[in-house]
């Protein structure tokens, strides 16, 4: 082969699966050129959680604003883009539809390829924006709706080796926070309380079958609720810090131990964490220490790439683009979308 010129690939990513409206331009799947996120957290706080209809209404208000801002900050014209990638699912269906229909209209207006991206693939590929991914790779995905161990034998190839059988880790955090009267979203607060705590309540670890990589957090959640209930009945006050630390230690220990066992079994070259709960300091510290000792490189993206954003969608979308994946204008929101490999 003669001279081989690599053309740059510019992808516009769009994400609206939950309560952030986001758009981003990513170069070659690895370099963030712009990353715009309009968060709605403030609008949902007073309801103690995300209200789907309110989320959808905000997305309509924000969607063209964030796309314009992402293009402007990237100083890029639609004609310079190679494709438009958008979160297809999972997520809140009404919320997904806004990003999807905006992406379809934009791709049609400019004759650009359209690619529907799995939200969790996005969370995993947030790592590609920080350092090159090396395979086989093990991803611990911990977010508001997911707790999964995903094995990637190569780029674009996913094998689900474990998942939660009930609550997702983030969901458990938010529910425990409610028990402790901490306003939504409670995850970060519990993390903080746990760190400042000088003691802890002993809560169970749920391991399931010895060879299982699945998780279960509803028993732990119930243990916290019972602990509070019993204290209330005795007219005693609980120490929220001790509860937070006891809860967090249980979650972190189980997540870390199962991730380590899987990393050993599958002999992976890299371990990564992804999703909103990977912002958790206790979890980051435990995973870092464990894999340092084990001699396996471990990475977790910076905080702003852990929570929902569109750069991660563009990053995963770039891999799909290279693999020749395309969606047509009938692309629809799929709230229960399964994570499928695009490289088999």
């Amino acid at each position, binding site marked *: 082969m003669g001279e081989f010129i690599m053309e740059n690939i510019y992808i516009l990513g769009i994400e609206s699966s939950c309560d952030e409206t986001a758009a981003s331009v990513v170069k070659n799947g690895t370099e963030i050129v712009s990353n715009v996120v309009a968060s709605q957290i403030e609008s949902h706080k007073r309801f103690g959680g995300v209200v789907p209809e309110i989320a*959808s209404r905000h997305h309509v208000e924000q969607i063209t604003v964030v796309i314009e801002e992402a293009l402007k900050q990237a100083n890029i014209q639609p004609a310079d883009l190679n494709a438009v990638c958008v979160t297809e699912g999972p997520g809140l269906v009404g919320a997904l539809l806004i990003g999807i229909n905006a992406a379809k209209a934009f791709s049609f207006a400019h004759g650009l390829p359209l690619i529907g991206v799995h939200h969790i693939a996005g969370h995993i590929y947030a790592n590609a924006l920080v350092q090159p991914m090396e395979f086989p790779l093990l991803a611990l995905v911990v977010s508001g709706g997911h707790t999964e161990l995903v094995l990637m034998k190569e780029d674009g190839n996913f094998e689900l080796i474990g998942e939660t059988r009930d609550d997702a880790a983030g969901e458990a955090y938010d529910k425990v926070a409610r028990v402790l009267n901490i306003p939504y979203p409670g995850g970060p607060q519990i993390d903080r309380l746990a760190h400042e705590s000088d003691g802890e309540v002993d809560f169970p670890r749920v391991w399931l079958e010895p060879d299982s990589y699945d998780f279960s957090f509803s028993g732990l959640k119930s243990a916290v609720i019972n602990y509070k209930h019993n204290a209330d009945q005795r007219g005693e006050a609980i120490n929220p810090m001790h509860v937070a630390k006891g809860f967090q230690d249980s979650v972190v220990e189980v997540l870390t131990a199962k991730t380590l066992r899987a990393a050993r079994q599958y002999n992976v070259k890299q371990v990564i964490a992804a999703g909103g709960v990977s912002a958790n300091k206790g979890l980051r510290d435990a995973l870092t220490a464990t894999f340092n000792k084990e001699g396996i490189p471990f990475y977790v993206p910076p905080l702003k790439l852990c929570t929902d954003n569109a750069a991660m969608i563009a990053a995963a979308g770039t891999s799909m683009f290279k693999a020749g994946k395309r969606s047509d204008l009938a692309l*629809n929101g799929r709230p229960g979308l399964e994570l499928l490999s695009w490289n088999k």
Partner: protein
Amino acid sequence: MIWLGIDTANSPLAVAIVKDGKIVAAETRNMKVNHSASVMPAIEDIIKKAGLSPSDIDAIAVSQGPGSYTGVRIGVTVAKTLAWTLQIPLAGVSSLKVLAANAGIYQGLVCSVIDARRENVYGGVYNSAHQLESVIDDGHYSMASLLEKLKEIGQPVLFVGQDVDVFWQQIKQQLGELATRAPYTFDLPSAGQLIYLAEQVELPAVEDTHNFVPTYCRLVEAEANWLKEQKEQKR
């Protein structure tokens, strides 16, 4: 001047192209349509059938609601994204007025009705003898209260919209001879009518495309409950 019209506010899907005051192509579908999956393919198709490409479009008209929250949002999202990125003007028209326009040559009051469940409707009353001037504002009404208002006015009314069937007995009971049911050929929104109505307003009808949002005519239930709680606490 080439217009693209889009109406996904309720179960029917309607798209049309108007060029210099002529409908070039129009389509209305009233099967079980999934708007999110169908509207962009329908737009692509009608633009192609009209022998045009997206950059030929000069303005966009969209049915702004009220209606199905999700349906209205899909139409509005597609319309505002196209208008913004093609840098062309956008016009929003009431989904109820679009229905009333079907009876444009009827000389009298036209009441458009969309079922909003639990005996409620999105309704609006227009005077088609006076360029569809609004007589009762678009809104979310209990059917009983809307009929009460019409009874007070005491003039003959033509009812349009597929959902009139749901309420026809009640309408006849309350209004008797004053009420007429429009033939079913008047029941579906026409994107041609939508564009025709949009043309009556000087462009740019929407000053800031970014801020263009659906007319929901209703608060989100969680919001309404929250406001109620706040009020009760103050008491």
